[in-house]
């Protein structure tokens, strides 16, 4: 990514890519206000890869939407000093009326990139996700894995310091997902992005992250955090990944069991 010296200094100057400060969120439910997120405080350091792990319905997407600015917290505040974060959804969310290349160019255009630079930049981003030939392809002509890679390229086109990902690989088969894990790790290390990645797959969390944050359910609270020191390149079947996954799974099961006790 073309970064001027001043910009690079700017990025060093801030101590966090996202700061979630005592955030709570409740929705109006059938039985009055339903507290979904309770007093969450979390910093994502510049260049850090954090995964948010939690059971289904614990509020992971809700938290990500808050960070993305799609919704407002009931209590607390969220800062993203780098501007509007990029967001990748579980579904690819590519626009079917545009080709893969034009999807990326739309993101560039909305960011304010000049017309004559868009094509080249889009092709560079497609190359980054290794889809150089896909510029003119329609969304429905791409496989599931290719769609998610185009979606990743479109998210990167926003040139944000912070990339939010909401279970982006959940709908893919295991082989494709494994390949995309490698891709994402490579791109993250190349671009020095901060990533906040949501998943309920423990191994995926450990495989990808520098730090895993476990959310409890109902209401969602930060239950525990792990720093993952396993060196890259990692593989999902590595012994170290498996070992830590077992530990985290135990903890996650404990969290879920607590709900059955009353």
């Amino acid at each position, binding site marked *: 990514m073309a970064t001027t010296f001043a910009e690079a200094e700017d990025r060093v100057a801030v101590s966090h890519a996202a700061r979630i400060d005592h955030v709570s969120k409740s929705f109006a439910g059938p039985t009055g206000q339903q507290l979904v997120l309770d007093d969450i405080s979390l910093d994502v350091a510049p260049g850090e890869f954090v995964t948010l792990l939690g059971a289904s319905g614990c509020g992971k997407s809700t938290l990500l939407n808050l960070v*993305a*600015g*799609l919704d407002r917290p009931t209590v607390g505040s969220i800062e993203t000093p780098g501007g*509007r*974060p*990029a*967001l990748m*959804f579980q*579904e690819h*969310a590519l*626009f*079917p*009326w*545009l080709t893969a290349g034009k999807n990326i160019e*739309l*993101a560039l255009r*909305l*960011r304010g990139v000049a017309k004559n630079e868009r094509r080249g930049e889009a092709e560079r981003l497609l190359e980054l996700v*290794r*889809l150089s030939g896909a510029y003119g392809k*329609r*969304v*429905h*002509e*791409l*496989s*599931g*894995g*290719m769609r998610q890679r185009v979606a990743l390229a*479109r998210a990167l086109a*926003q040139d944000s310091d912070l990339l939010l990902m909401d279970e982006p690989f959940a709908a893919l088969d295991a*082989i*494709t997902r494994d*390949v995309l894990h*490698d*891709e994402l790790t*490579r791109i993250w290390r190349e671009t020095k992005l901060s990533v906040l990645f949501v998943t309920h797959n423990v191994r995926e969390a450990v495989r990808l992250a520098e730090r895993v944050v476990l959310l409890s359910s109902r209401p969602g609270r930060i239950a525990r955090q792990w720093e993952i020191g396993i060196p890259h*390149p990692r593989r999902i079947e590595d012994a170290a990944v498996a070992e830590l996954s077992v530990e985290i799974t135990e903890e996650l099961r404990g969290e879920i069991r607590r709900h059955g006790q009353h």
Partner: protein
Amino acid sequence: MASTDTTTEAVAKTDDLAGLEAGLDALDSVQVRRTPVREVLGRKVLPPLVAVALVLVVWQVLVWAKITDEYKLPPPAAVWDSLTTMWLEGTLLGVLWTSVSRALLGFVMALAIGTPLGLLVARVRFVRAAIGPILSGLQSLPSVAWVAPAVLWLGLNDSMMYAVILLGAVPSIANGLVSGVDQVPPLFLRAGRTLGANGLRGAWHIVMPAALPGYLAGLKQGWAFSWRSLMAAEIIASSPELGLGLGQLLENGRNNIDMPGIFLAILLILIVGIAIDLLIFSPLERAVLRRRGLLVKS
């Protein structure tokens, strides 16, 4: 920096990943194939031709069987004679043009009014609450109902025709756009917002293109309503100043008890309606749906 050894190793690993990915992409991609012309002819063109031929045969057999008087059921040949007579007199194209040009011009006006109206109803809550139900209700009102007031308000002239077309077609076009906008998946709106497409930019880059299929369906129906409304107006309100259109042709047939003429007029009305749909709206709709992968090949 890493040592040379690990660098080459890393490069080999990256190549490996790229190869794996290329393989997965190739295995998983959809092959798009164009249908050959022969198949199109056999599957799309032949069946309707067979159906038309069958109708003609049954018609002729009924005439031969003399199930009713010949002035009530003329043979196909008599209708063909009417057609060739009109062609030789040089009136056929004039009659067609009178009606088709009216309907198309009326349709374009309906488009110009229906589109902004639909956008207003879809996006402004107050407008929707105020006129949304009326607009959908109007669709079920037969446009013939408008002919009487239109004649009294505007007199026997072209503006009365256009008024009837507009009252028939505008609700369809506006409603098509409204349902198109309503059916835009919320995911697209959220994706648009994270990319920075809010307000007008969101409407232009996300909502409008996403609503296009619904809008086109509305246009298609709008055309059908334009054509029907015009025919109703032409049949009921005939006057020498209005020129001879297909509706008047039908009405003249009735006045002269000229059954072949009536059959010819009905057939022409049907054919024009189908032809415009086949030549303009269906290809447009199919092109849009195909580009989005929404056209299921049977």
